[in-house]
């Protein structure tokens, strides 16, 4: 039920301005949010979406403009004040405490108490209840860091919806979720909306936006581009508004970026895993990746996609099975040995496993290349600059300044930096775990094209993504995982559809 404009907005922002040293992140943005609506905030990577949210919730002080809550101008001094004012937020980066239990992460700050002390059994009960609300079956007393990024993202959402707020802000909550989890989340969002909660939703998945949102606000380079009713703006027009171009009907987006493997389907395998397994993480699996081939891994959250890939990079030790690279048996005990065999791994969790926020874009990009060369053969300064500038341009990293600190980049731009780091090492096998997470539509297509080109030049790619369309567009073969077991290997011969993959996952059919 879309909001009526006659209603008073629960939250309104007028002429908000935010400057960071050297960047104007928000320049006079107006924005309003009505009770009982789901409102999308759209824009390219770096458009200022997360900054707007952080200014709204007092994480960053604003440099101008006003925030009006329930008709009264307010000054929100910090996240705590925002919560007290009825604004509940999931920020873009998962912001929870890894050392605490899931239950505490959901309820800390508002723990149920008895005689002034934390009422632990009640706390666990309430946490378990709200976790079940999202159909999440996890042990709430286990520490948070024993779960994957996706589960952590769900826990952050649970934390935000557990409290009955007037305004719920979700900054890219679905970036690492599967269809099923997204469906669950949308069900919860609809329920809250019908109860009159105003929801602000950020996502780079246009289909999701069109499915759930009533209205949207588009930002372009820190300015307000416009506010639209979802029903009145076609997707192509939206994309045009986001990138600030003319609405061009691109026709069918080329539905396959995939090329035939350079050396034909019977090219020699680059890597062959036989019965590779790690107890508790992934059951024994066989996998062959040929040169120039893109192999996809599909499966639900926690199905073992990442776990399977980590073994190939030596990030975890396998407990059985063997790996052959170009015919010779190797033992991939550490990432170092894997790298020396020409394997690169772009992990899914950019914050804890990938980027170093205190270093610059340039330093982050050359890190892996430098490590591969060894520290005794440093890259010259000019060479580093060349490389950094080349990839900043190739991936459209913004701001395009190699000396910017990575922690000040928007989420999507950070992801691009991570990707660049591994692409330049010119690996023989590139493992990409959710490489397009949080990346805007334009850049996503660029990255897919890049991967296809690299494979065309003979690089092997293992591509993990929750987005089946993307997997189908890129991959020659798709491995399907279920319950930590590789259950099928399907050739992508044109007859494969997202639905048939889902069906395979559901039935767990053996190939």
């Amino acid at each position, binding site marked *: 039920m879309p909001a009526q404009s006659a209603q008073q907005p629960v939250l309104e922002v007028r002429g908000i301005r935010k400057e960071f040293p050297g960047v104007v992140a928000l320049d006079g943005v107006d924005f309003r949010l009505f009770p009982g609506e789901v409102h999308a905030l759209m824009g390219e990577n770096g458009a200022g979406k997360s900054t707007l949210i952080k200014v709204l919730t007092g994480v960053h002080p604003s440099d101008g403009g006003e925030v009006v809550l329930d008709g009264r101008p307010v000054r929100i001094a910090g*996240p705590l004040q925002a919560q007290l004012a009825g604004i509940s937020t999931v920020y873009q980066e998962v912001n929870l405490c890894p050392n*605490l239990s899931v239950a*505490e992460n959901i309820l800390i700050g508002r723990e149920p108490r008895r005689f002034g002390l934390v009422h632990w059994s009640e706390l666990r009960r309430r946490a378990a209840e709200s976790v079940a609300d999202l159909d999440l079956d*996890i042990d709430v007393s286990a520490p948070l860091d*024993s779960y994957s990024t996706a589960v952590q993202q769900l826990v952050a959402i649970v934390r935000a919806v557990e409290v009955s707020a007037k305004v719920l802000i979700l900054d890219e909550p679905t970036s690492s979720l599967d269809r099923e989890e997204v469906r669950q989340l949308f069900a919860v969002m609809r329920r809250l909306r019908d109860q009159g909660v105003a929801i602000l939703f950020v996502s780079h998945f246009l289909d999701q936006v069109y499915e759930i949102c009533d209205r949207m606000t588009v930002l372009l380079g820190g300015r307000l581009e416009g506010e639209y009713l979802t029903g009145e703006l076609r997707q192509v027009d939206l994309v045009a508004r986001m990138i600030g171009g003319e609405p061009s009907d691109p026709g069918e987006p080329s539905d396959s970026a995939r090329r035939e493997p350079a050396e034909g389907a019977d090219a020699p395998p680059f890597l062959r895993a036989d019965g590779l397994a790690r107890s508790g993480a992934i059951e024994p699996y066989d996998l062959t990746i040929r040169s120039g081939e893109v192999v996809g891994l599909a499966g639900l959250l*926690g199905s073992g996609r990442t776990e399977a890939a980590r073994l190939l990079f030596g990030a975890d030790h396998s407990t059985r099975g063997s790996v052959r690279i170009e015919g010779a048996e190797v033992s991939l005990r550490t990432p170092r040995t894997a790298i020396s065999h020409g394997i690169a791994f772009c992990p899914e969790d950019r914050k804890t496993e990938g980027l170093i926020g205190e270093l610059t874009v340039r330093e982050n990009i050359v890190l892996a290349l430098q490590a591969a060369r060894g520290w005794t053969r440093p890259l010259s300064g000019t060479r580093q600059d060349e490389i950094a500038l080349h990839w900043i341009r190739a991936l459209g990293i913004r701001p395009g300044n190699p000396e910017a600190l990575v922690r000040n980049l928007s989420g999507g731009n950070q992801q691009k930096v991570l990707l660049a780091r591994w692409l330049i090492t010119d690996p023989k096998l590139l493992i990409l775990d959710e490489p397009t997470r949080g990346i805007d539509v334009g850049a996503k297509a660029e990255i897919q094209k890049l991967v296809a080109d690299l494979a065309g030049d003979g690089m092997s790619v293992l591509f993990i993504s929750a987005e089946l369309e993307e997997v189908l567009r890129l991959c020659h073969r798709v491995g399907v995982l279920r*319950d930590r077991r590789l259950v099928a290997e399907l050739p992508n011969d044109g007859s494969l559809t997202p639905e048939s993959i889902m069906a395979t996952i559901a039935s767990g059919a053996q190939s």
Partner: protein
Amino acid sequence: MTSNPMAGAVRRGRQYVPLLVTSVLLVLMFSVGSVQYDGFLSGQVLLNLLIDNAFLLVVAVGMTFVVLTGGIDLSVGAVVALSTMLSAWLVERHGWPPLLVIPLVLVVGTVAGFVMGWVIHSFEIQPFIVTLAGMFLARGLCYTISIDSISITDPTYTAFAQTRIPLPGDLFVSPSVLVAVGVVAVAFVVLHHTRLGRNVYALGGSEQSALLMGLPVARTKIAVYAVSGFCSSLGGVLLTFYMLSGYGLHAVGLELDAIAAVVIGGTLLTGGSGYLLGTVLGVLVLGLIQTLISFQGTLSSWWTRIVIGGLLFVFILLQRLIVGRRKV
């Protein structure tokens, strides 16, 4: 998506590994002592451990709060010395009643901790630097009061020092032990069962997250240093009873013993993980090393330091291993 309940239990269990290691170590040391030396295996030896280390225990409790947030407090030894000095000076030179002096000393220590916490938070300065300055300041203040040791003859203090509380089986403890046990009990409840305590853990897990989750980061941070200041001054009061003197050279290097006890007790120096009972075990381990060496009789007391050094090394390696394994 399902979760494996066994895996969950294993994940939870891993947090207790350092605690377990310390307990095993303690039992092992005690058994070695009992086998080697006559008269070692007695309840009183164990109780003497508490009597001799009551003040260290209290100080280490405060240190646990700080270390759990990922901070460090180097000023504790100096605050202990200042407390002994202040007590002795006020009681002996000015004739103030102990019942007034003791609360005053506690207030001074708490305020000192509060101020350090406030500086650390407001100016975003490394706790290491701020508490190092605090350490110099407190030691320096001792000498402005008096260069020499001031001994205490006040009857209340001497009475307290000589009091023995009998326990069944011909055993006894000192009142300081009761105070220390009380402090441990209260701190345990605060750390594990109150919001303040849970915020301490959250802060140690990730300050940025704690802030975005809307937790009172500033208040918690300042509070842990105030708690540490309070515990140091209380430790100072107990040490005054034990030594019956105030001196600027009391408790030199105590901050390092306290940190060692916390680390051996299984608390991560990076914050966010550890238990108060671990600290108690850590203090007992340190005390037991000393006892073993005094029973041995021929080794110089410097061996205590060497053993503690070795143990610290092992425990820090152990922590590395556990943290390294934490990501599944």
